[in-house]
């Protein structure tokens, strides 16, 4: 496998312009004859599908939910970054680029990140034109707030429902195309295979979840926009259905999987409540604009009513350790600091695995109404879950799995190592390095869909205008469908004793304990064996109910967990191989007084893993990260 990132030559700020100027075009009459498959209908998928159809391509979109509008982008709360500099506070494309690279602990590609910052301004324009109701100031202009890892206010938002509003914007643009007949929507469909012919992606096998039928679909190009793999941890802030299946199947068909161990543990989530818990809920990072994070200075105060703990007996540890960024330190750092405080025995709540996020000062300073206007829905959500009123008593929060920076390896054009197969949004690895900054996921999803793919896919499809739609009875389609069929039959035929959730929970605990916020060589080595054994046991002893030819959520879940059991091992192997600490990847052996210690000499590369067969070691390919414009530094937020 040869990985060519295809980064255009020339100065950083001219690369994207040069690429667009040189890219091949497809004439409108030919576009109509070209079919594109988009899997996933979140920000990246919906925006890409709408934009492709507007250009004139024929598009098919698949999602596992009943409607495209439900993709998990909808749950993003805080906001979207853009280098508009509307606040006149010194922001610029270069500064957003730099903050993002630094936030990612210098493990992402300069050219990709620069392009992201560059197109970020167009995203806001696009969304406003679609009628996305962003928050505004009294003068009628757009409002901004700050997010972690930056010292400017560049985050656009719509209360605590920014993801919802942006997704509904992209969804409306896509539904317009559905109405025009240029996009065909397949809800309640899950992709289970990529069909390749001579190493080129030519379609997919999808399962209609309503009747269980397997369907063959041809495409001149296939775009995966299927989100991240955080649900490998069982408990995460992802939606229950989020899964790695599409990306993993692509990986098995030759798409390299990059940096799987780069996962983001978000510092502000509602803490785990009991063994029955099915998922975790995020409390937006925007809360850290006004909320102050603290734990009691002394262990013996941990069970007290926080309001009775005197100011001098509180440890505002982020403000203490990182005075220049304070409560807005990046996520990986804030999460680790919370874990440290709890490990020292200063955690609060029943489990001792929580810290306070306190709004008392902000309410005093800005007033109840102002806080309600900014965070009302988040406070309501917190109250719903915990039965406590955060206007009166500090929130209790703890880190939880939230986002995965790793994903399918893509080149500058967002093409994976399989020709004609693309990956966009969280599903690819390209822009966030080892840690994603807040409000950057929405930016990246929409950048990929609205402004990057519509150009890069044309450059590829220009060479496909003579490719006639391939007969769905082609052996490659038949074979791919058979693989899926056998797999489902196998899952149902085991008739073992343990439920799918049993296995998922156990896998999640292994990954959380050994490949979570702190990782060690010993722990990872042990965890790898545990996952291998668990996987073997799964295929011997799983109990799946129902049949293949009906709506069967248990079977759908079983198929997803089977893939998580394979991915989990690769995450561990990747974490073992990367003998340094960077961003969200914290190897306990490599630290400098609690701060991540990178090793740029040996590890300034992207790990891209090549699948070699079931239960075989994958091959590591290294894409060296070349920094021509910025200097690698120790990432300091002090």
């Amino acid at each position, binding site marked *: 496998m040869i990985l060519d990132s295809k980064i255009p030559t020339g100065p950083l700020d001219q690369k994207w312009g040069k690429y667009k100027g040189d890219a091949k075009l497809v004439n409108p009459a030919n576009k109509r004859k070209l079919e594109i498959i988009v899997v996933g209908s979140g920000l990246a998928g919906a925006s890409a599908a709408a934009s492709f159809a507007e250009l004139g391509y024929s598009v098919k979109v698949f999602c596992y939910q009943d409607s495209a509008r439900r993709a*998990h982008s909808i749950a993003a709360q805080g906001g979207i970054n853009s280098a508009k500099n509307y606040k006149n506070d010194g922001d610029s494309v270069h500064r957003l680029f730099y903050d993002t690279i630094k936030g990612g602990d210098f493990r992402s590609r300069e050219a990709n990140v620069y392009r992201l910052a560059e197109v970020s301004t167009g995203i806001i324009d696009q969304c406003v034109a*679609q*009628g996305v109701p962003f928050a505004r100031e009294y003068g*009628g202009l757009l409002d901004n707030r700050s997010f972690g890892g930056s010292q400017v206010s560049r985050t656009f938002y719509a209360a605590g429902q920014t993801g919802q509003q942006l997704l509904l914007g992209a969804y409306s643009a896509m539904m317009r195309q559905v109405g025009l007949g240029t996009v065909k929507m397949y809800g309640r469909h899950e992709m289970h295979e990529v069909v390749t012919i001579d190493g080129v992606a030519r379609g997919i096998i999808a399962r209609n979840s309503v009747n269980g039928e397997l369907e063959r679909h041809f495409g001149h190009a296939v775009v995966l926009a299927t989100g991240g793999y955080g649900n490998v941890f069982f408990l995460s802030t992802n939606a229950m259905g989020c899964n790695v299946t599409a990306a993993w199947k692509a990986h098995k068909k030759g798409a390299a999987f990059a940096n799987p161990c780069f996962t983001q543990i978000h510092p502000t989530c509602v803490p785990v409540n*009991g063994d029955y818990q099915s998922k975790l809920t995020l409390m937006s990072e925007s809360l850290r604009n006004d909320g102050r994070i603290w734990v009691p200075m002394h262990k013996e105060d941990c069970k007290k009513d926080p309001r009775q703990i005197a100011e001098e007996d509180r440890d505002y540890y982020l403000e203490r350790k990182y005075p220049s960024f304070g409560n807005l330190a990046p996520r990986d750092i804030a999460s680790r600091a919370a874990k440290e405080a709890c490990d020292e025995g200063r955690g609060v709540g029943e489990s001792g695995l929580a810290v306070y996020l306190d709004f008392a000062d902000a309410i005093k300073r800005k007033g109840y109404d102002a806080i309600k206007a900014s965070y009302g829905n988040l406070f309501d959500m917190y109250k719903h879950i915990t039965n406590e009123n955060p206007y009166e008593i500090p929130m209790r929060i703890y880190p939880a799995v939230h986002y995965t920076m790793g994903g399918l390896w893509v080149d500058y054009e967002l093409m994976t190592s399989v020709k004609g197969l693309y990956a966009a949004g969280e599903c690819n690895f390209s822009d966030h390095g080892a840690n994603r900054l807040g409000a950057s996921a929405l930016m990246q999803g929409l950048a990929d869909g609205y402004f990057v793919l519509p150009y890069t896919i044309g450059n590829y499809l220009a060479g496909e205008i003579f490719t006639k739609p391939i007969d769905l009875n082609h052996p490659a389609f038949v074979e791919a469908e058979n693989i899926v069929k056998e797999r489902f039959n196998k899952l149902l035929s085991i008739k073992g004793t343990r439920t799918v*959730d049993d296995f998922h929970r156990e896998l999640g605990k292994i990954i959380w304990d050994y490949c979570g916020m702190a990782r060690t060589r010993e722990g990872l080595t042990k965890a790898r064996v545990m996952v291998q054994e668990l996987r073997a046991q799964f295929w011997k002893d799983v*109990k799946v109910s129902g049949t293949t030819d009906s*709506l069967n959520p248990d079977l759908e879940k079983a198929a997803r967990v089977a893939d998580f059991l394979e991915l989990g091992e690769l995450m561990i192997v990747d974490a073992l191989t990367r003998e340094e600490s960077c961003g969200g990847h914290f190897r306990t052996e490599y630290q400098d007084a609690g701060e991540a210690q990178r090793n740029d000499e040996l590890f300034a590369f992207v790990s891209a893993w090549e699948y070699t067969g079931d239960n075989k070691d994958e091959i590591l390919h290294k894409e060296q990260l070349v920094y021509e414009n910025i200097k690698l530094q120790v990432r300091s937020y002090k």
Partner: protein
Amino acid sequence: MKFTLQIWRQANNKAQGKMVDYQIDNINANMSFLEMMDVLNDQIIRKGEEPVAFDHDCREGICGMCSMHINGRAHGPLKLSTTCQLYMRNFTDGETITIEPFRAKAFPVLKDLIVNRGAFDNIQAAGGFISVSTGQVKDANNIPINKEDADMAFYAAACIGCGACVAACKNASASLFVSAKVSQYALLPQGQTERNERVLAMVNQMEVEGFGSCTNTGACEAECPKGISISNIARMNRDYISAAISAK
């Protein structure tokens, strides 16, 4: 806590459905309603039977996928809450809880508690958008919008498309859903160009899909988990009349 659950079981779209009783015990008050359903399903699976199929995804009240009619109310007893945001502490120990799918002609049952809400997508495709293609736009701050209008548009846009309004309505009208989208765009300068065509197309599609008419009962507003105001329906009706009269 323990409960008797009466749950609608229906094998598929064609099959006859019926209510089936289940007993459940050892339920923690801080469990969410759907976690209680997970526990129930776990027991059913271990017995070798088919678990209850229900729609759910984000479990934080924003995706709009969950859709249960609990004790005769869309999304259950709690105001401003989706099914996934209910907790067992919202119920009484020993209570009998009935759980049915959202019922409406335009929302056919697919299995157990799962219904097909594709009609909402069709209404959206008929006109729920502003016709602007990627790149055809000017700088965002060239469109100043009065804060109050922007806020009102946002409140309308907060609709999660769950269908509780339809399930709650005795006529199974989709007026609250449709009017929320119509209002969001009607309140914004960007939405003016297609304002008339939009309301005509969306209301027309609502009828095509088989939803009933609005008789201003207000059940939709009362049960809406996002507190979408019925005043949006008034706005939609005004817009509809005005558009119908001025139709070319």
